[in-house]
């Protein structure tokens, strides 16, 4: 009941014309980012942080969150129409969505995806409303040892589930933590790895690093591959038939459950629930052999799971301060730039803000379904933008975005350096997500550990003698051991095959 009252208060703020306008702008830009291949949601969100800095914190986060889940909607359009996922989570939609498009049923595929996304997203936000207060009250009992253990759980999930190789995921995660070491140390105030550069005293900024790794890295990867194609897809009838809706009903329900549950676990990544949903639909189908030939269930399930995941992934961010993906890590960075720290204290100290953003998620889902159904032909037109022009746009936005935060050209240099790293990591198949997540979580984790050890006067057993932190560390250990077991099994399997 209390949550509902607070949510109503949140709606009162989110429905103010200014906030409503920024939710609309965010949804539009997010859809555009999702539509345009070559700009992922992480880079797209980071690019627009400078605009967000120029407006009020509530409007800024409403807009950035709308960009985040708007990109999830938008990514579907390219998957269905040109067999190219606008963002990774829509990759599985290519299988049946593109097959439907070739049969002239692109409109039905996109409409069902939009409806499923709306249902999944709305239910997941409902879950956020229900668990937000109990979870934050529980988390308020956390001291530094519990907080440190929680960060370890977050990191263990990230490294265990990211990418195809555990070793490469671990490398990426450790590098992220190392990058986070640069700057003034959080407890004693001593400079670390600054090499005399005053600009490095505050450490690497989130925006230059993310823009480099995802924005410039992506540009380098695409121009190297010569990705300059222009697409001219055609769509016919937009509305799905009665049979399409009947066939999509249960996949939408199942996709919502899968996406929501997986969104609660940091580090799963948006791509996993979509594949799980697809596999589930295929297994439950009476005609599994027809999957891949244009089955609407293969679009409805994964697309619903995708958006349920995107919205549910905000639960660990809002309530515990753990970002589950690079994009939510950037959102966390945007929170912090506005002087707001996601986690249990957010609801206590800035409750009005937190509930306004949650209410805006509902509004955003409605805006997106309105934007997506009738405006699909308009989005298709954007696909005709040649990559050369798109690249120039990303280039310009990246420079403005990175420079304007600190009025520093040094940050542009950092973005370039991380762009080259991002390109190299892509080439080497080293996952980028663990690096960005640990980069954001690193300082919080270090502070948690060092404050714990100060509390215990250097006795490390404080981490295992307190029941909550011990439980969390056991969970982290189980996750790491199971990940290693899975990795070894995979290697053994490969060798045997």
């Amino acid at each position, binding site marked *: 009941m209390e949550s509902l009252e607070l949510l109503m208060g949140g709606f009162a703020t989110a429905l103010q014309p200014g906030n409503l306008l920024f939710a609309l702008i965010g949804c539009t830009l997010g859809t555009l980012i999702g539509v345009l291949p070559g700009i992922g949601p992480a880079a797209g969100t980071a690019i627009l942080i400078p605009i967000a800095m120029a407006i009020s914190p509530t409007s800024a986060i409403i807009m950035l969150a709308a960009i985040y889940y708007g990109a999830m909607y938008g990514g579907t359009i390219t998957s269905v129409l040109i067999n190219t996922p606008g963002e990774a989570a829509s990759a599985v939609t290519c299988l049946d969505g593109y097959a439907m498009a070739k049969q002239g049923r692109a409109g039905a595929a996109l409409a069902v995806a939009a409806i499923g996304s709306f249902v999944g997203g709305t239910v997941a936000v409902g879950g956020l409303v229900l668990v937000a207060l109990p979870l934050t009250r529980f988390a308020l009992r956390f001291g530094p040892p519990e907080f440190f253990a929680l960060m370890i759980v977050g990191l263990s999930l990230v490294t265990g589930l990211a990418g195809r190789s555990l070793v490469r995921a671990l490398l990426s995660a450790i590098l992220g933590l190392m990058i986070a070491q640069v700057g003034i140390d959080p407890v004693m105030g001593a400079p670390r790895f600054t090499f005399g550069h005053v600009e490095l005293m505050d450490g690497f900024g989130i925006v230059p690093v993310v823009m480099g790794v995802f924005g410039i890295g992506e540009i380098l990867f695409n121009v190297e591959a010569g990705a300059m194609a222009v697409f001219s897809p055609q769509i016919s009838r937009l509305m799905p038939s009665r049979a399409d809706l009947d066939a999509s009903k249960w996949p939408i329900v199942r996709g919502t459950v899968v996406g929501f549950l997986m969104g609660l676990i940091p580090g799963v990544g948006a791509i996993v629930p979509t594949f799980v949903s697809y596999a589930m639909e295929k297994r439950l189908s009476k005609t599994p052999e027809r999957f891949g030939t244009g089955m609407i269930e293969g679009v409805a399930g994964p697309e619903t799971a995708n958006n349920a995941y995107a919205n549910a992934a905000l639960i660990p961010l809002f309530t515990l301060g753990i970002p589950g993906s690079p994009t939510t890590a950037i959102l966390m960075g945007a929170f912090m730039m506005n002087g707001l720290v996601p986690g249990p204290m957010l609801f206590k100290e800035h409750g009005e803000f937190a509930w306004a953003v949650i209410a805006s998620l509902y509004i955003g889902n409605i805006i997106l379904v309105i934007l997506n159904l009738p405006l699909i032909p308009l989005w298709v037109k954007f696909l005709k933008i040649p990559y050369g022009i798109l*690249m120039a746009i990303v280039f*310009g936005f990246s420079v403005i975005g990175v420079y*304007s935060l600190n009025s520093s050209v040094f940050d542009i240099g950092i973005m370039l350096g991380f762009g080259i790293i991002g390109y190299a990591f892509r080439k080497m198949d080293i996952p980028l997500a663990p690096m960005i997540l640990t980069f954001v979580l690193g300082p919080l984790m270090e502070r948690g*550990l060092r404050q714990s050890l100060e509390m215990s006067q250097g006795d490390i057993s404080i981490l295992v003698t307190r029941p909550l932190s011990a439980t969390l560390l056991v969970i982290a250990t189980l996750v790491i051991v199971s990940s290693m077991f899975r990795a070894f099994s995979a290697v053994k399997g490969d060798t045997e095959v």
Partner: protein
Amino acid sequence: MTMRRPYQIAGSLFLLMAVLVGWQSLTMKFYTHLGPGPGFFPFWLAVALGVVSIVMIAQSTFGPSEPMPADFRPTRGGVLRMATVVVTLAATAALLEPLGFRLTMFAALLFLLAALGRQVWFVTVLIAAAGSFGAFQVFDGWLRVALPTGVFGL
């Protein structure tokens, strides 16, 4: 062709980085009477990086190798296109404050679009102008995001 050699080289570079970071961290306070010092965390991270790098080298040397993707080695054209972006970005960083946002970005976008965009000249000029003079008006003029004007006031 396999990925054995690239992963051996990458693992060695990460190992070298681990040694350098570990060595640097030992020049900082490792432990104080209050608990861990500034060098504590980086030191253990360097150890972890070193261990994982060695595992990577060992896996790539003694384990089964992944096949090298066909497009792993960039073509000459690919390298040139990447170099165009890198040099343009570096030049933008160097000239942004002396020349100002509008002139620098106009030149950078003009060059990028001419080199990689394959557009007719007036489209190239139009986009470069929109991305420089237009973007300045939007960000600096309307959104109050400060952008440099340089010696020419542009």
